[in-house]
């Protein structure tokens, strides 16, 4: 039997709704009833004629108006290195709450408009994440604080820096104990600034608070290695990876770095068919779990038991405390694989429990990971917070022993579980100063705000892991009356230097073999021993830790997890991130209760094997709202059914339910906050914050709440209904036996039309067109792609793709040019997952081109399927005829680019927010901003192609790979996408296609001749993928 692939439950059951929806491109009915005829319609023919007459007249009037006189104002004194219209690139560093990614900012006419990864960084090698890509939009966020202010009674009063500095220094002088509270800071010079400040005020200290705490890991390392730090992980050195709840490709520690390392182990070719093996144990479906070769589901409370069992099995004993047979077998299997690859194995765990992490360390010691896959010579600095420090601070505040609190970026008033106690403590602190750049929840509790710059306006440095320095330089003059927090601290510690001078002095002595200018230009300076070293392991704590591990519990459990885009709330104010469909749930704009298909049956009374019930769940956006009682608190959230979740576990994402002052995007249509804040459900266990909650009570309410899921949008089907024609995979075993499996499959598919080799000529009665010169092509390695979504946001930023807001996503009007399709296969409760980036395939025989009545879409001699917006009249025939469903229609004026305000009537705040003058500064001036009524789609970043060709022409040489890259490929942390000129046999795209027998084209048999090729996914499991 053919293996079944499914995107939705409807497809799994082949339900009526699925059959219907896969037939129609557009989900809305025609605006009239075909049976009754046009005259009975809401807008009958006469109205149509009226509108037609009006629009013609209006257009004539509008067009006959005078062309306004435009001014062309040159520079008064043009800086030598700036040519208006030519972009400059500056190396800088994305820093947010400890996350540190070296980037290059593209600055066009004084405005940063795009962030790229810095390829010189040995850690990320040019990779980025969705949040890094979206960070440029935060710069133009209208909700940023615009001036220093004092607050009394909730009202802000603008102050000058001089006045507020004076007031604050006086207040600090008499405050007594001062606490500087921040999220993780890994900038060496800034830490020096803090030290200076602390020296000036002797009764002061610096406390680090991380909302997504790694305290368990840090303390476990202190217990076993004597270092209160986190080592560097080397996933690329691991042949076997076991993760117990660590979502290291999405949110755990340094996902961009790990994704690059992980993908190295997944790069596989015909000559060397070897790859890493990844076991994943998890409770709620995650991105990393979805990429695993083998995934096992467990209760959150079983984490300790799994770790202990793994340790015990590796020592030759048996599994303990695990009842579930599948899970037990999984542990044994994982242990065996690990034992076979000692020195090339790595075990990571996402738990924040010290005892569990101590045992994980012990396991890694058994596996000889220390010095191989775990590197202590360079420790990671991305998280440093220890929860107990903050808990003590809360106690101290309540005891009245804290005189002044300076808060930077940390936002405990939102993310600390015990809000009431924190509030009473804060009320007792006399002087509260916020350096954060937004009026976030904690800042609103403060009496002074001295807002910080955005990182693109700042100077600075960062040390992501020991010896890996990355520099920050401003790319734009500060937009508002803000000041770097370091400058504020220096002012308050009565230093004479400003931070820039301080930074330069700090580095002049430390840069070896590099000058300040060079370091700044590169953005990178590495002082690295390069050889992984070991650190002695102290095993004395292990047995105690095992004894202290809590036994598994019963009943329903809840896990609070982070979404890749929103994190612990940092992405909430960013419309690009809110609209990015979560790779796992494919939902936008909300958080929700994730339940398993099994629980759906018992709790929601939805039997997914029943077509009617699964259809009614999937077709209607309103989902049943469930009341959740955990740790004594009750919240209500809609429920989504996500396979890959443990039957007795539910999950909720943190980072939602933000205060309205954070930005327009956190406010829903009804004026309430988007989603619910679930941080208060967490608790502190053994001194560390625990995000797993047991004994959860769930009750279905009568209410329903619409969730904007993109899961069933843009379904593509084949006449045969075989998903294997869209996406292909195979197991490592099959591949090793015969590397030509996929090729043979294609031969069989195309056999009737001349086979793979002659398909182009024999599949059609038309002769193929010549492509002299350049022919563009793209290849996507499904084995490297982990579905993280950075490409989607990169595409947003590069191509001015509009944000449409939740109500529009609910109406299937989402505009992403590039989407990541998620396919399930196998067991409904714990399926295998394939992510397939789907974008315009630039077919050489494009079906869209034939049906356009005005030739607005046609083919270029370079193989591009061109879309000409100004010619498009919006018939949408092309979208209907596209087999890949990648064409997007502008249903409304999302970008505010046309002159009729009515075209924006139905849009919500978020869309209007994107149209503010400030936000529009992020638009790419080389790309047309589309208005209402036209189709748009992936252009292969044609503006970059033209620019790359021009570069080569100016240098009078043939085009090389380095000249061009598309935004999605450039942003990818796993290098899954290769782009280039197929006509050049030396190009990387030609090599990628030539070298791999895993090559396939989606829906190849249609003879549309796509220019995007895929490399089949290889799953490192024993079972055959095709059975």
């Amino acid at each position: 039997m053919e293996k079944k692939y499914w995107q939705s439950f409807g497809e799994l059951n082949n339900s009526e709704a699925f059959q219907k929806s896969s037939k129609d491109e557009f989900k809305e009915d025609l605006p009239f009833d075909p049976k009754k005829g046009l005259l009975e319609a809401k807008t009958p023919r006469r109205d149509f004629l009226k509108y037609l007459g009006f629009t013609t007249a209006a257009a004539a009037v509008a067009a006959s108006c005078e062309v306004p006189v435009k001014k062309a104002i040159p520079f008064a004194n043009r800086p030598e290195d700036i040519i208006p219209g030519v972009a400059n690139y500056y190396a800088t560093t994305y820093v947010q709450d400890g996350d540190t990614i070296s980037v290059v900012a593209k600055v066009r006419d004084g405005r940063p408009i795009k962030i790229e990864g810095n390829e010189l960084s040995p850690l990320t090698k040019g990779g980025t994440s969705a949040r890094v890509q979206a960070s440029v939009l935060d710069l133009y966020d209208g909700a940023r604080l615009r001036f220093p202010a004092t607050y009394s009674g909730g009202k802000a009063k603008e102050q000058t820096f001089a006045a507020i500095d004076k007031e604050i220094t006086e207040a600090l002088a008499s405050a007594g104990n001062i606490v500087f509270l921040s999220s993780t800071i890994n900038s060496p010079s800034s830490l020096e600034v803090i030290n200076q400040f602390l020296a000036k005020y002797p009764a002061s200290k610096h406390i680090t608070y991380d909302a997504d705490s790694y305290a368990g890991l840090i303390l476990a390392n202190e217990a076993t290695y004597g270092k209160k730090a986190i080592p560097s992980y080397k996933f690329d050195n691991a042949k076997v990876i076991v993760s117990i709840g660590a979502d290291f490709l999405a949110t755990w520690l340094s996902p961009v770095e790990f994704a690059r390392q992980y993908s190295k182990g997944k790069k596989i070719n015909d000559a060397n068919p070897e790859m890493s093996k990844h076991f994943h144990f998890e409770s709620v479906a995650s991105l990393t779990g979805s990429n695993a070769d083998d995934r096992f589901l467990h209760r959150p409370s079983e984490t300790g038991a799994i770790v202990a069992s793994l340790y015990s099995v590796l020592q030759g004993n048996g599994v303990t405390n695990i009842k579930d047979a599948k899970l037990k077998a999984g542990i044994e299997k994982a242990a065996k694989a690990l034992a076979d690859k000692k020195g090339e194995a790595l075990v990571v765990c996402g738990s924040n429990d010290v005892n569990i992490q101590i045992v994980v360390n012990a396991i890694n010691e058994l596996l000889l990971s220390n010095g191989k896959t775990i590197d202590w010579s360079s420790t990671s600095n991305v998280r440093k917070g220890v929860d107990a420090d903050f808990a003590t601070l809360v106690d101290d505040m309540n005891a009245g022993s804290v005189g002044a609190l300076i808060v930077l970026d940390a936002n405990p008033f939102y993310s600390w579980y015990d809000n009431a106690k924190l509030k009473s403590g804060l009320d007792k602190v006399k002087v509260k100063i916020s350096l954060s750049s937004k009026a976030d929840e904690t800042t609103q509790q403060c009496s002074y705000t001295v807002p910080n710059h955005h990182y693109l306006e700042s100077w600075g440095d960062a040390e992501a892991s020991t010896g890996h320095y990355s520099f920050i330089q401003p790319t734009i003059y500060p937009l508002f009356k803000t000041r770097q927090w370091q400058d504020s601290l220096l002012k308050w510690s009565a230093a004479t230097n400003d931070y820039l001078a301080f930074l330069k002095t700090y580095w002049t002595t430390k840069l070896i073999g590099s000058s300040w200018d060079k370091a700044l230009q590169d953005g990178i300076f590495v002082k690295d021993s390069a050889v992984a070293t070991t650190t002695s392991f102290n095993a004395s704590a292990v047995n105690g830790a095992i004894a202290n591990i809590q036994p598994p519990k019963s009943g329903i459990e809840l896990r609070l997890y982070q979404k890749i885009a929103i994190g612990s709330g940092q992405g909430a104010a960013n419309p690009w991130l809110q609209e990015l469909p979560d790779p796992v749930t494919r939902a936008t704009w909300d958080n929700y209760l994730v339940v398993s298909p099994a629980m759906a049956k018992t709790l929601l009374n939805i039997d997914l094997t029943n077509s009617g019930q699964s259809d009614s769940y999937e077709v209607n956006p309103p989902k049943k709202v469930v009341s959740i009682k955990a740790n004594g608190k009750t919240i209500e959230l809609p429920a989504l059914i996500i396979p890959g979740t443990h039957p007795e576990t539910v999950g909720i994402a943190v980072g939602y339910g933000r205060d309205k002052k954070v930005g327009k995007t956190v406010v829903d249509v009804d004026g309430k906050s988007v989603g619910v804040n679930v941080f208060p459900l967490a608790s502190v266990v053994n001194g560390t914050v625990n995000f797993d909650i047991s004994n959860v009570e769930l009750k279905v309410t009568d209410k329903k709440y619409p969730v904007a899921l993109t899961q069933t949008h843009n379904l593509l089907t084949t006449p045969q209904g075989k998903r294997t024609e869209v996406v292909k995979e195979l197991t490592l075993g099959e591949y090793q036996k015969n590397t030509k499996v996929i090729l043979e499959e294609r031969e069989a598919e195309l056999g009737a039309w001349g086979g793979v080799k002659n398909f182009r000529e024999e599949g059609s009665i038309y002769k193929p067109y010549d492509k002299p010169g350049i022919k563009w092509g793209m290849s996507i390695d499904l084995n490297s792609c982990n579905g993280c979504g950075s490409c989607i946001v990169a595409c947003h930023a590069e191509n001015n793709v509009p944000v449409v807001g939740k109500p529009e996503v609910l109406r299937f009007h989402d505009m992403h040019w590039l989407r990541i399709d998620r396919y399930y296969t196998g067991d409904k409760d714990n399926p295998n997952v394939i992510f397939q980036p789907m974008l315009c395939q630039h077919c050489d025989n494009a079906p869209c081109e034939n049906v356009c009545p005005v030739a607005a879409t046609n083919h270029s001699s370079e193989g591009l399927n061109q879309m000409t917006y100004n010619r498009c009249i919006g018939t949408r025939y092309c979208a209907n005829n596209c087999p890949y469903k990648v064409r997007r229609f502008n249903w409304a004026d999302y970008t505010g680019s046309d002159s009729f305000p009515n075209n924006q009537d139905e849009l919500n705040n978020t869309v209007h927010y994107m149209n503010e003058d400030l936000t529009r500064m992020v638009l790419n001036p080389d790309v047309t901003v589309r208005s209402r009524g036209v189709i748009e789609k992936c252009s292969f970043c044609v503006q970059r192609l033209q620019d790359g060709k021009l570069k080569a022409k100016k240098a009078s040489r043939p085009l090389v790979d380095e000249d061009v890259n598309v935004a999605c490929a450039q942003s990818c942390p796993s290098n899954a996408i290769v782009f280039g000129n197929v006509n050049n046999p030396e190009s990387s795209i030609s090599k990628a296609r030539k070298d791999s027998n895993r090559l396939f084209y989606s829906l190849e048999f249609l003879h549309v001749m796509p220019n995007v090729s895929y490399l089949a996914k290889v799953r490192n499991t024993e079972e055959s993928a095709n059975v």
Partner: protein
Amino acid sequence: MTNYKSLTKTFLFSALIALSISFSNNAVAQDGKALFNSNCAACHKLDKDMTGPALQGTLERWNNDRQKLHAWIKNPMAFLKTGDKYANDLFIKWNKIPMSPFDGALKDAEIDAILDYIAKGVQPAATGGDGKTAAAGQKAESDNTLLYGILTVVLAIVALILINVNKNLKRITEEQPEGYKGVAFWKNKTNITVAILALFIVGGYLTTKGAIGLGRNQNYQPTQPIYYSHKVHAGVNQINCLYCHGGAEEGKHANIPSVNVCMNCHKAIHEYTGPALTDADGKEVNGTEEIQKLFKYAGFNPQDANSWSADKAKPIQWVQIHSLPDHVYFNHSQHVAVGKVQCQTCHGEIEKMDEVKQFSDLSMGWCVNCHRETKVQFKDNGFYSIYEKYHNELKSGKIDSTKGITVEKIGGTECQKCHY
């Protein structure tokens, strides 16, 4: 009828006289102005102190003593020695910098003409930063075809109706029921049809032509804040276009030079000495005054040239002439640096224009036509070496080498070469 003739004659005659009077008036005034501009304006303005004092009210200040003034202007240093108090005070007030003597350079009559001109006082500045009025006028002109088309149709209809009424009246007065000789010419249905069709075609043609021309600004020539003559710079003085518009080789925009680029030369060049300049309306323009305007933007004091730095400059708000719609991507460097297209191909004989006007209509048809006809640097630019097929076909003669490889041949007329 004779009455009419004499009336016309009288009218024409008086008009001629009026015209000649106004001309002669103009001539005198122009004379004084021209003399002022060519002799005095380098240092004097009427209403403002410059290198020398403002000249407005000179006669009053000198108690209308023209003789003294003549002597003073002809040889100031000599006149100072006569001990005239006002002159000596003035000399001290202006830091003892004497005016250059005009003895021999100016005749008495000419000095009087200048004094008369000065006496007339300041006239409102002819140009300014506001290009709006001129621009609007320009615009209206280019759009008039549509207006004329509609007017023609309306007038034609009115004429038809009037003729109809007239004929009807005539018929009533001359009605001869018995002598009726069939349908009149205008009543003939064939004729009516032909007339309507003709009107429809002419009207349609004019409307379409007008509609296509909407938003196009060929010959647009707005008044700029500074009368900057390309003829003087690029034509007479042979300054390379790229000296100021260097962006044309580097990127998308040719770029208007910043003030510091102007000042590279004008730090040394303080006055205009070339042939007389006139603006679009035929009015004479004082080049030196225009340079003074630049100095004002630059914050430059000619007396204190060395202390100037470019930081003092303020940008000049030029009026944009060439403007493409937002959905068009045009890159100067592609055409200038790669295609080796001359500036004049698109901008016309710019080195002969005092004030720049838009030479081409910048329509898509115009772009595409050029792309169809223009050859790319096929052999000279290494980029095109990848078009092996065309190179072979050129060699074998399959492609006409006189026609060569045009831009169109390598895809230069495809939509996404300019629209994305």
